[in-house]
């Protein structure tokens, strides 16, 4: 999968690039509007991640260019502005997702995976991870052909873990993905623990091996090994 990453902040660009390369994507990066526009012209990408606040142009125009060329790329907007207008304009222009700075890399990773899945498989392909099979269309989760009932939050948690399997995930990163803006509640980590505990119990009750491991007391690792 080829991804074009457009971001003007060098350290952010590098961190995102390295993280996504480790996920096995072929990465192209652009730090300016001009370079991004050229890259979009010359090559096809499976997914384009655009920071709309570029020094030499509005990233929204890149989206217009992409849409005008009628390319099949998935599209994720990054914005530092938590402004509803930008979000709506972006989504109206046909972006698949919108993410506000600052964000955690595992979250960006999960969102890219979700966009690629929707774009290229119509969301109909099953996600398999070990004994677990998730149908993203119907939100059905089965373990060894046995259906398990998950709440919406538990389902989101599971997808997040699968997308970031074999990576150390801190409670902060998980909580932000699951709750977003409602995360400033005082004891959100305890709350998160309750959800994780329930998810883990439901998976194990259905006969799934315990993939979810606590690491260093502060994070989780989802892995089959």
């Amino acid at each position, binding site marked *: 999968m080829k991804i074009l990453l457009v971001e003007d*902040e060098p*350290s*952010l660009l590098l*961190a*995102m690039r*390295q*993280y996504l390369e*480790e996920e096995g994507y072929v990465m192209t990066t652009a730090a300016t509007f001009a370079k991004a526009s050229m890259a979009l012209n010359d090559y096809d990408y499976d997914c384009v991640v655009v920071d709309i*606040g570029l020094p030499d142009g509005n990233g929204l125009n890149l989206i217009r260019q992409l849409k005008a060329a009628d390319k099949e790329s998935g599209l994720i907007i990054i914005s*530092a*502005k*938590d*402004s*509803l207008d930008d979000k709506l304009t972006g989504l109206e222009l046909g972006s698949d997702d919108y993410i*506000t*700075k*600052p*964000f*955690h*890399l*595992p979250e960006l990773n999960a969102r890219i995976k979700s966009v690629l899945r929707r774009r290229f498989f119509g969301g109909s392909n099953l996600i398999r991870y070990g004994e677990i099979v998730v149908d993203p269309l119907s939100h059905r989760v089965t373990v060894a052909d046995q259906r398990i009932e998950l*709440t919406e*939050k538990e389902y989101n948690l599971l997808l997040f873990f699968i997308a970031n399997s074999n*990576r*150390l995930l*801190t*409670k*902060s*990163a998980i909580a*932000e993905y699951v709750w977003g*803006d*409602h*995360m*400033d*509640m*005082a*004891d959100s980590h*305890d*709350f998160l623990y*309750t*959800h994780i505990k329930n998810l883990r119990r439901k998976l194990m009750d259905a006969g799934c091996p315990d993939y979810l491991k606590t*690491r*260093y*007391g*502060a*994070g989780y690792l989802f892995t089959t090994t």
Partner: protein
Amino acid sequence: MSLLRKTLLYLMLAAIPVALGGVWFFGTLINRVIRYEVDEQLSSDLAFIQHQLQTARVPLNRGHHLLDNPYIALLPSGHPIGRMYSDTVEFDRREQEPVPVRRLTATAQIGDRMYLIVVRQAMGEFEEIAHLLSLGVMVAFVLLLILLTLLNGWISRRLWQPFYRLIDQLRTYRLNERTPDTFDRSGIDEFDQLSVALNDMSLTLHRQYVGQKEFTDHAAHEMQTPLAVVTTQLDRLLTTEPLTEEQVNLMEQAQQSVRRLVQLNKSLLLLTKIENNQFADQQRVNLSELVNRLHLNFAAYAQHRGLNWTTLIEPDVSRLMNPYLAEVLISNLLKNSLTHALPSTFAQLDLTNSQFTVTNVGPPLPFPADQLFDRFVKNPARPESTGLGLALVKQIADRYGMTVDYCYDERGRLHTFTLFFPN
């Protein structure tokens, strides 16, 4: 009192003394002129009589008074007396009433005889003329006053028309519109100066508003970018091996602090944006649906805290608001109520057409209740809160003319927040 009425009032106040003084002056003047003319007439009559007496062929020693007016009689004493004008009242036979009379008394020496001559002129007719004249002047004056009043009203209304138009334009003036309003010119110098001043002011305000808006946008950008760098670098650091438990714990704590900073930044920016009136677009927000949705969102959290959360939501309660602010307002009140509730107690939520109420059980506030909605006032036992949630609630409520009321019931240890909607 309107400018028009005020002008008329002052006009009246000035006109009445002028009118009274004018009438008095005019009356006196007429009387004097009449008297002067009558006296002149009497004097001329006297001269004529004296002349006739000098050249008279008829000896006048016979018969004392051939005529009553002029009255001519022989003066026995023979001493001359000076001319004397006097006013008397005599009975008029024709009018059957006493009438004022002007009299000139003089003597004339004809040969060795001394005659007394009295010439008289009835003044009644003249006084009537004087009265009529005075009355005429008064009527003319009153008519003039009415005419002036009407004219003044009409002129004022015409003259002040541009002023009222400017007021109407000011009333509909909205700072957040994309292009600032321009105030019309009228061709009257003073109002043109006013509209030029207003245009300048509106332009300056608009520039400042745009500047503020850009500042908040830039501030968000400038703050969020380094925060994003810190977040992603910590994420990267977590992928390096080998890690010790201590390192991971430190990184996790750093991430938590960054999170708090992000929340703080967002809330402060939101407060500034509301103050800058950047959420001007409004629509009918169905509060019932919103509260239901948020209730569903927070239900798991309430359950996690062992709260028995009861709700009473009237259907189809809607208000004209910015949808985003409506969500912040309701969710902040809900979050506040749920996080501060004592575990395993109850919480209550009511929405009616006139108010929104949240209740929870908890210990009394550790600070005075009147500081509750101030910024950065928070429970020392909960340092992780931003202390901005209720400040936002207050700000948004104020914006839409709602009042937020807080009360604490000692016996039941009940904290109740009530949001009253305006009618």
